[in-house]
């Protein structure tokens, strides 16, 4: 477990900012204590200083997970957000998409969101903007990338994709082995 290098931090924050914009600083400067990012097994964990201190007691090979896993660095040094980061993405998300109850299940099985399943969408969403997907009951279900702008969404036919799927909470079951 080690702190992130400057480059890693930059890559990761760029990724995060696609979803939560400048709210990133709310993640770092929290009123309830200092929180930090740590790298362990190519995965980035977000934890409070207090837990970090305790976790240093544990040897590297025995440590499985600390705090919340945000994602991992791929072999090509890109950063990939995991569904486990949703806990912190959802409250700070800038752009949101709500899916209709009928399309909920489809999204949770890893499919893109179609126009027919689109319930609501934040105004002025740009194309390829990172969005957090909610159910109509405001339960965060995952995140993805807007395939169309809000304006375009109004016009397209019902079967066209409006949000590309990136991660959904179904992965807690489907990909349990690779979460950490």
């Amino acid at each position, binding site marked *: 477990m080690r702190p992130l290098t400057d480059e890693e931090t930059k890559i990761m924050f760029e990724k995060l900012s696609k979803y939560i914009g400048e709210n990133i600083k709310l993640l770092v400067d929290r009123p309830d204590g200092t929180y930090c990012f740590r790298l362990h097994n190519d995965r980035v964990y977000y*934890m*409070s200083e*207090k*837990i970090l201190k*305790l*976790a240093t*007691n*544990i040897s590297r090979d*025995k*440590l*499985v*997970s*600390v*705090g*919340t*896993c945000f994602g991992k660095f791929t072999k090509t040094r890109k950063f990939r957000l995991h*569904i*486990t980061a949703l*806990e912190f993405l959802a409250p700070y998300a800038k752009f949101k998409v709500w899916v209709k*109850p*009928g399309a*909920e*299940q489809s999204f*949770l099985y890893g499919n893109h969101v179609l126009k027919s399943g689109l319930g609501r969408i934040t105004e002025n969403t740009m194309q390829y903007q990172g969005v957090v997907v909610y*159910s*109509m*009951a405001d*339960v*965060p*279900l995952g995140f993805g990338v807007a395939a169309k702008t809000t304006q375009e969404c109004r016009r397209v036919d019902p079967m066209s994709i409006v949000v590309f799927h990136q991660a*959904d*909470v*179904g992965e*807690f*079951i489907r990909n*349990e*082995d690779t*979460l*950490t």
Partner: protein
Amino acid sequence: MGRKLDPASRVKRGPGKKARKQQGAETELAKFIPDEDAESKRLSSRARKRAAKRAQVSEKPKVAGEQPKKGFTDENSKWLKPAKRKRKNDEPESEDDSENYSEEDGEVEEQPLNKKAGKDQGQKVKKAGLKEVVDEDDGDDDDDDDDNDDEMVDDYGTIDDGSGDEEESDGEELLPIERAAKKEKKQKETMGLESDEDDTDEEEGEEGDDDEEDEKSDGDMEEDEDTVQVNMDEMDRFRLPGPEASEKEGILPIDLKTIYQRIKDNIDVLCNFSTKREEGKARTEYISLLKKDLCAYYSYNNFLIEKLMELFPLSELVDFLEANEIQRPVTIRTNTLKTRRRDLAQALINRGVNLDPLGKWSKVGLVIYDSSVPIGATPEYLAGQYMLQGASSFLPVMALSPQEGESVLDMSSAPGGKTTYIAQLMRNTGVIVANDANAERLKSVVGNIHRLGVTNTVVCNYDGRQFPKVMGGFDRVLLDAPCSGTGVIAKDPAVKTSKDEADILRSAHLQKELILSAIDSIDAQSTTGGYLVYCTCSVTVEENEWVVDYALKKRNVKLVPTGLDFGKEGFTRFRVRRFHPSLKLTRRFYPHSHNMDGFFVAKLKKFSNVILTAPAEKEAENEAAEATVITTPPVEEPSKSKEKKTPLIKPGSPKEKAQTNGTAMATANKSKSTGPKKAKVAKIEKGAEAKNSSADGKKEGKRFEKKHGKKKSAMKAKNRMGKNKFKKLKSMLRKQNLK
């Protein structure tokens, strides 16, 4: 909220099924309609009688008779009754079928509704037809328990009057008589069904009417009172099969039904042995036959049946075995970090899940009766709003009662149900260290932790026995020890045949190691905590009381009340073993009496770290205490050391041990300061003998030294130095002696 299911289709589904069943029953009933008028009149008159009786009954605390016996104060006792077993009744006569159907309906509807009536939980949409039942039931809530028993009797009713009888047998003395009467009635039914219109009608009428059933036993008792006298003589006495019969049995295929009947009769005889025994037959003959039958009928291995027979009185044994044949109800725990129970219940009901609050003792539990969607894959589940978790695994966490801001260790955490419950009780503050020895199983822990939005957890993969070396100073520790799983046979029937003595003792040994390292990881100076909760999903004494008793002897811990107001008290004496009297503060839970997995929960408080600094001293201290109590320590010594090394051997003189333990406990506090000195005295007295034990303890001492070396006060360090010097001196002296 959530996805709205198409109301049209749902409404059709729910009541339609039930309606179909009931219709079936009605058509059956239609055959007997001619008598209905008279019947209803008669019923009403009896009902009046019963109403009068009920009024009496409700005044005198009759229900209290049953409940305190089980040591259970929760109001929702209904839930804690195991459901009926569904197998059996192999020959489906039309008559029986209709009975069963109507009854099952009654049961299914009654349970949730009754509770609702009691708890005023009016969230669910009640079906109009059922409302009447509710109204009727409101009045006789007191009789709930009786209800259940009666239903049980009816269900098993036809050929093999089943464990329903058994249920009552603990208290009721009239039972055999009643059974005989019932048997006769059944015979009549099966023989002359049509000819005996009147009798069957009565039966049918009683079955059909829900209210009727409440008082059935009472009514029956009264009615059959006269016939009973006649039946007494006819009742065939149970006889042990002769040797040739048992030989024949070996060749012929075994008829389960006859075996079941034989078990019942056999237990009946054993319960009233002096009056019902056959002349010249010993109790052991009955017992061995019973053992054989139980093994054959429930397919257990010989060892486990013996263990269980030791554990339960015979009347309870069959209940336990029966309860192991049926699954426990599915329960879920609301994740209060993300939602509230009411919202969750509403969301799930909208998805077509039939559920109810778990009980008075839990504010977060829900029982799932049935569901049209897989309960482990709903969007609510994936969003982390609830966790699938057996009711029994709530208990250790409730006993632990972690506070906000504490540091808690969960020693064997997979799959994370208890860990996340701890986190939600702490509201994501403080630190939780979730450990498990199995790296594969830790994946589910990680998944569940993240799914439920728990952020204060460190997950690691150590063997629990190494733990105090890794880190210590926790406020609370939860040790859900790996065990033989004799309490969860319903979940994993493989246990029935796969376990033997060695398995039990092996896990007991591991548990003893784990409990010591768990205790060593606790900080006794903690202002808020210093508690250990030890729990297993096993019912055997070796894995529960014995382990806790061992910890009491080895460390400065004491048992404290678990804070669970139901469950049975732990054993303080079991066969030859005598445990510390405070072991009655522990709690046992059984499938047949609490309708949750067999479980054991003990809560210990560590009251000083002193022992930790020098286990050798503690050892010597114990001996010193012994020396004060018993003036012949050399006699006591060997047995003690033997026990330590090979826990498989039963303690030689248990009574004395318990005594010494008690005194050690009592004096431990006082003698804290004087302990070392005393120890020294004891050592000098014992010389070479004490050396063994001190060498044993030295290892632990060293281990601790590494960790707490800084904390140790100067004086203690000096003490230790002195001892080392003393040892060296002693060994030198010995060498000289040898020369």
